[in-house]
């Protein structure tokens, strides 16, 4: 048991951001013993997931719950038979879960999350589904950044520092402005990966909240909802397409505050 295990576990759990994953990858390539530990951890994890019992709720409990409810007319009861003991069946229901154990590359690029969405897209799924997957990915990127405590690669509130840093590393430049006077100080920026493409991630603070602003160029001819607001795993997400860039604002700040920043960064067309 040592600190390395924490990082190996976080890598297997897909909880590291791209820079932290890359740093760990480099160490893994150079240190066979570390790679060995990773393989052991993965074997253990696969054994647990394949074998440990996932207890299904007894029918009696399900019946009691239904009895608790004043009306049971349109409650979508999932039949107990659909529930498989053990994790094997659930893997099939969650296709990306199967990829986590094997493919490090998938872990790195968070392709694990994208894959089901892009498959769906090729089958002609609604744009909304695709964008829901993007929002989910943005939330994952945001939480990973919070987790590793290095949400930024260039730490500066000076837009004249952040903007050139991004423009040297990306083939597009998002608007970079410090909104400290409006209550949203710029903290810095980093690169991230969304939908398999490099995105700029600007980090703002608002009170105790950290707000990630992702921006990446989009094909103007591709159909996209101009604006969408959702709650993904407890985070508020605003997506907005503006000036050839797809913006995604993610935070646990309340939706009103998040929208205030969105309107500052990417003022709505005609507004």
């Amino acid at each position, binding site marked *: 048991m040592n600190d390395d295990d924490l990082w190996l576990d976080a890598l297997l759990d897909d909880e590291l951001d791209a820079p932290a994953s890359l740093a760990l990858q480099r160490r893994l390539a150079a240190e066979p013993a570390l790679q060995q530990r990773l393989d052991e951890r993965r074997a253990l994890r696969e054994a647990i997931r394949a074998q440990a019992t996932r207890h299904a709720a*007894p029918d009696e409990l399900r019946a009691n719950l239904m009895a608790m409810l004043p009306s049971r007319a349109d409650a979508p009861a999932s039949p107990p038979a659909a529930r498989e003991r053990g994790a094997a069946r659930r893997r099939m229901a969650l296709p990306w879960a199967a990829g986590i154990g094997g493919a490090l590359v998938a872990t790195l690029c968070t392709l694990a999350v994208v894959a089901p969405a892009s498959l769906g897209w090729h089958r002609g799924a609604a744009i909304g589904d695709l964008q829901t997957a993007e929002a989910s990915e943005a939330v994952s990127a945001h939480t990973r950044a919070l987790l590793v405590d290095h949400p930024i690669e260039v730490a500066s509130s000076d837009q004249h520092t952040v903007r050139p840093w991004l423009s040297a590393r990306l083939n597009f430049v998002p608007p970079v402005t410090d909104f400290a006077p409006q209550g949203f100080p710029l903290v810095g920026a980093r690169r991230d990966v969304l939908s398999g493409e490099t995105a700029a991630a600007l980090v703002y603070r608002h009170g105790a909240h950290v707000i990630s602003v992702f921006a990446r160029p989009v094909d103007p001819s591709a159909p996209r909802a101009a604006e969408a607001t959702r709650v993904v795993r407890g985070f508020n997400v605003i997506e907005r397409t503006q000036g050839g860039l797809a913006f995604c604002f993610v935070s646990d700040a309340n939706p009103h505050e998040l929208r205030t920043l969105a309107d500052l960064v990417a003022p709505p067309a005609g507004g």
Partner: protein
Amino acid sequence: MQDDPGRFAASVLPHLDAAYNLARWLVRDAHDAQDVVQDALVRALRHFDGFRGGDPRPWLLAIVRNAAFAWLGARRTGEVDFADHEHELAAALALDAPPADPESLAIRRAERREIDAAIAALPIAFREALVLRELEELSYRDIARITDVPIGTVMSRLSRARHLLAVALRPEAARNLA
């Protein structure tokens, strides 16, 4: 809206198995787990208007978890006082020498009952983190919210849980557990 039993059922029913699974692993008894989930459902229904949307699963599991701990606490099982022992346990784990022989940690094709027994034997703080991560596939952040600890604590508990399991499932150790 808070009077809408249909909405409550739609939010909670899909996660009933997850709720029962967590309770079952925490109290380690099928009958008691039913009582715990039932108690949790009553609380969940009562507080449903406090649920502001989003993913209902972590919300429900947090209620189940609290109900399980209340149940364990009322029965003075001693299990819930883990916070005091965590440092001692960490020290004990640190003393556990890393394996000199790589194969000694290699996980055999362990039997289901061996793995279940090894998980059931984990201290409760490690057990709940492991069950939420490996069986319910929740993110560190959700686990942190459900178990009411910082994410860093989730990370270290998970890592320790896995270390303990790896040790318990070594070929020579598994025989004693099964």
